[in-house]
């Protein structure tokens, strides 16, 4: 559909958009959060700085946050597309985006401690491929920072400490606990991607995939939709607030997905995304035409 060079250029632009500009729904949620905080208080000041920062990043086309995170990538491709070629192109785009300072060199050899210097490394970036029936290609990314990644948690139900059994009430209990554990460490106010069920690997992947959803959307499953709204409401009653300074705005959104499970396993997996909820998407048509999606 595109030449290697055009793929690389397109992916660099995809990364630039994610790193330097927030999706409008996230910015709107931050603005609403600020309106809900006490004027002149620490929480309001934090959100005002955050909003100023978003504006500065957009106008100067520079990273919103210095931790430009790990690019996590989901590719939907038509039958016959080479996933290896796409992975090569995306990896090259990470090198270039790092050289242009849209990304920080964020890949470190775990054993030697040496930074690769170009942003890519073993397992970085991470691409998920899915074939579909449509003729176009769709690439969606999130940039997930390390501070928020450290706040992720996987619970195994039943969980005695929280009196959490294998039902949605148990899910509610552990998710709220994850928010308390995170405090301000993951750059609150955050967005939660949650997966109920799955195995230890598939569950984390699904919890991250949930972060692709726009904040105001509704879960098609009415029961999960109700759970999402309740967790958002109760999460914001915990009083942790922006940066963990105390306040009304602890979460910007909660998104819940479900995978089936083994009889013996009941995992609840939470991925915590910081307020800099960076995502961007592009659709590449059969003829190579680009449609940018936020």
């Amino acid at each position, binding site marked *: 559909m595109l030449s290697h060079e055009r793929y690389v250029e397109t992916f660099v632009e995809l990364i630039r958009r994610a790193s330097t500009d927030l999706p409008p729904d996230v910015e709107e949620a931050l603005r609403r959060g600020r309106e809900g905080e006490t004027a002149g208080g620490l929480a309001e000041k934090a959100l005002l700085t955050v909003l100023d*920062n978003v504006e500065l990043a957009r106008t100067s086309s520079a*990273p919103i946050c210095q931790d430009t995170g790990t690019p996590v990538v989901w590719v939907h491709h038509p039958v016959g597309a080479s996933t290896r070629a796409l992975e090569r192109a995306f990896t090259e785009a990470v090198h270039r985006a790092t050289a242009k300072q849209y990304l920080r060199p964020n890949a470190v050899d775990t054993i030697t*401690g040496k930074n690769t*210097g170009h942003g890519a490394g073993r397992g970085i970036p991470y691409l998920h491929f899915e074939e579909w029936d449509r003729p176009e290609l769709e690439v969606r990314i999130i940039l997930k920072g*390390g501070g928020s990644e450290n706040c992720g948690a996987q619970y195994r139900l039943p969980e005695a400490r929280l009196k959490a059994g294998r039902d949605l009430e148990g899910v509610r209990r552990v998710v709220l606990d994850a928010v308390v554990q995170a*405090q301000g460490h993951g750059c609150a106010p955050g967005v939660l991607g949650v997966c109920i069920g799955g195995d230890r690997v598939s569950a984390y992947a699904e919890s991250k995939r949930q972060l692709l959803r726009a904040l105001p959307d509704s879960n098609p499953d009415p029961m999960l939709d109700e759970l999402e709204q309740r967790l958002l409401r109760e999460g914001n009653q915990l009083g942790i607030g922006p940066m963990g*300074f105390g306040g009304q705005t602890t979460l910007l959104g909660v998104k819940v997905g479900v995978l089936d499970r083994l009889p013996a396993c009941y995992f609840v997996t939470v991925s915590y995304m910081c307020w800099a909820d960076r995502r961007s998407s592009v659709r590449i048509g059969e003829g190579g035409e680009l449609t940018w999606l936020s």
Partner: protein
Amino acid sequence: MAELKLPLSEETARGLKVGDFLELTGPMITGRDAAHKWLVEAQQDEVAPFLEGTVIYHCGPVVRKNPDGSYDFVAAGPTTSSREEPYQADVIKRYKLRGAIGKGGMGPKTLQGLADSGAVYLHAIGGAAQVLARCVKRVERVFMLEEFGVPEAMWVIHVERFPVVVTMDSHGGSLHREVLQASESKLKGLIGL
């Protein structure tokens, strides 16, 4: 908001209280995970003079190298400080730091270290990489760039009007402890524990 010149004296540091808004002007140094481990493993004489009397900034910046060999900070917000909890009190004491800047707060060992050494924990706004990079006026020099890489190197910088709030002080005060306790108690209420 009070302007505070760096370096600062022990007396000045002890005069700061949780909730104080400050704008810092002067020299400081960045240091995060690799740096803290390195600083406690041995006395690092070369870097020691750049730590004494100032604050260490938990920050892994995005940096541009200019054609003349100089550097500029492109993005420079704080990183999560809790990872330095095992080291921070010792680093402050050994290198005579007057504080640390980061985000998310730190734990009881650091809080005790602040009281013992006369230092403060200053919170910058996490993710505000553009606002804060604009306060970094010069990059003076860098230590351990080759060994640690760009995010983990120790960058000696000069800042002007760098905004922070004191969230842990030398009198045992910690906003983070207060918020943690209040939120734990709220959680217990919500889930009936």
